[in-house]
């Protein structure tokens, strides 16, 4: 690495609908992004795959195309809404280059793959803060990414303060 005068950093922030990931994004903008480094902020939202419900005996319910379209449209709307919110946060809090990506699939794997593909130096994510039992059943995206991503991972937890945390 030569002179760190304008070291380029690519920071990938994984966002979803939860408050925790927005908190992680705003923490990152306040504390990590600075104008001393030329940073590029990459926002990634992963659309969960359409669940096809199957009964235990192997019969699958096929939804009609209308319903599928509606589900698809809803998924896209949620994605756009989350991205808008994230971009608004970025423009409010920091003056930084922002790129957005919306991908499909299982969040855990997609985040790790995209971190590799986009050449991110740092991956920032929030954590739902599940307890031990919930974590065992629902699984933790942040845990999985911390173990499997090739780049350093920063996990930001939202403080559970009961008073107004703002």
């Amino acid at each position, binding site marked *: *690495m030569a002179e*760190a*005068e304008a*070291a380029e*950093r690519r920071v990938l922030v994984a966002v979803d609908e939860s408050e925790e990931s927005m908190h*992680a994004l705003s*923490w990152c*903008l*306040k*504390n*990590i992004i*600075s104008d*001393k*480094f030329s940073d590029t902020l990459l926002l990634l939202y992963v659309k969960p795959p359409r669940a096809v419900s199957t009964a235990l005996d192997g019969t699958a319910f096929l939804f009609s195309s209308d319903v599928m379209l509606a589900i698809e449209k809803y998924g896209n709307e949620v994605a756009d809404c989350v991205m808008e919110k994230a971009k608004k946060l970025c423009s*409010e*809090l*920091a003056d930084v280059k922002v790129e957005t990506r919306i991908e499909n699939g299982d969040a855990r794997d997609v985040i790790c793959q995209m971190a590799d593909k986009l050449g991110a*130096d*740092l991956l920032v994510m929030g*954590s739902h803060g599940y307890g031990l039992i919930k*974590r065992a059943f629902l699984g933790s995206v*942040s*845990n999985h990414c*911390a*173990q499997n*991503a*090739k780049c*350093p*991972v*920063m*996990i*930001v*937890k939202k*403080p559970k303060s009961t008073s107004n945390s703002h």
Partner: protein
Amino acid sequence: MDASTATDTAPLAAGGAVEESTVVGMVMQEPVAAVRKSKMKVMVAVDESEGSFYALRWMLDHMVRRSSPALATDGDDEVEMITLVHVQQPFQHYAFPAGPGGAAFYAASSVVESVRKAQEENSALILSRALHMCKESTVKAETLILIGDPKDMICQATEQMHTDLLVVGSRGLGKIKRALIGSVSDYCAHHAKCPILIVKPPKEASKH
């Protein structure tokens, strides 16, 4: 001059509400900028492994501006202070023999002393190397030695010192080992209240 001030005060009184609202608007914008420039207290957990030094090096390269000392004194750094913490495993003063008998042997005090001294030297070596790295990057650093189980001690230390960021290396254990041996970085990721940065050493075989 009096006339001008008189005319000035009249609009102020009439548009006083407007003035106040703009003042309020300005005041509300300031805290956002002020919070952005607040300095971070970072705690880095170091031990004998190369992974933890790689984590420290990564943090210094990417989050601290390694510039000339002249630029560093402008006081506008994000990282205020790095606390290097090394946790020593407590030395068991007794050993149970494997054979029949069942009595516990207590280690002689001289053995305890020599082990403790060896541990202190070990810690001093590790911390001095870490301090040297921080000094190269012109960042204030302090050291801390704790005795106990690394997982718990690190999490407790972050709470007590109100650190803003905890940096740990990761040994890159596989799933089975992680479940059996337990991973400090995993435990801290779950239990530490502050944000945590986990830095894995790069794979030597791959490109890079």
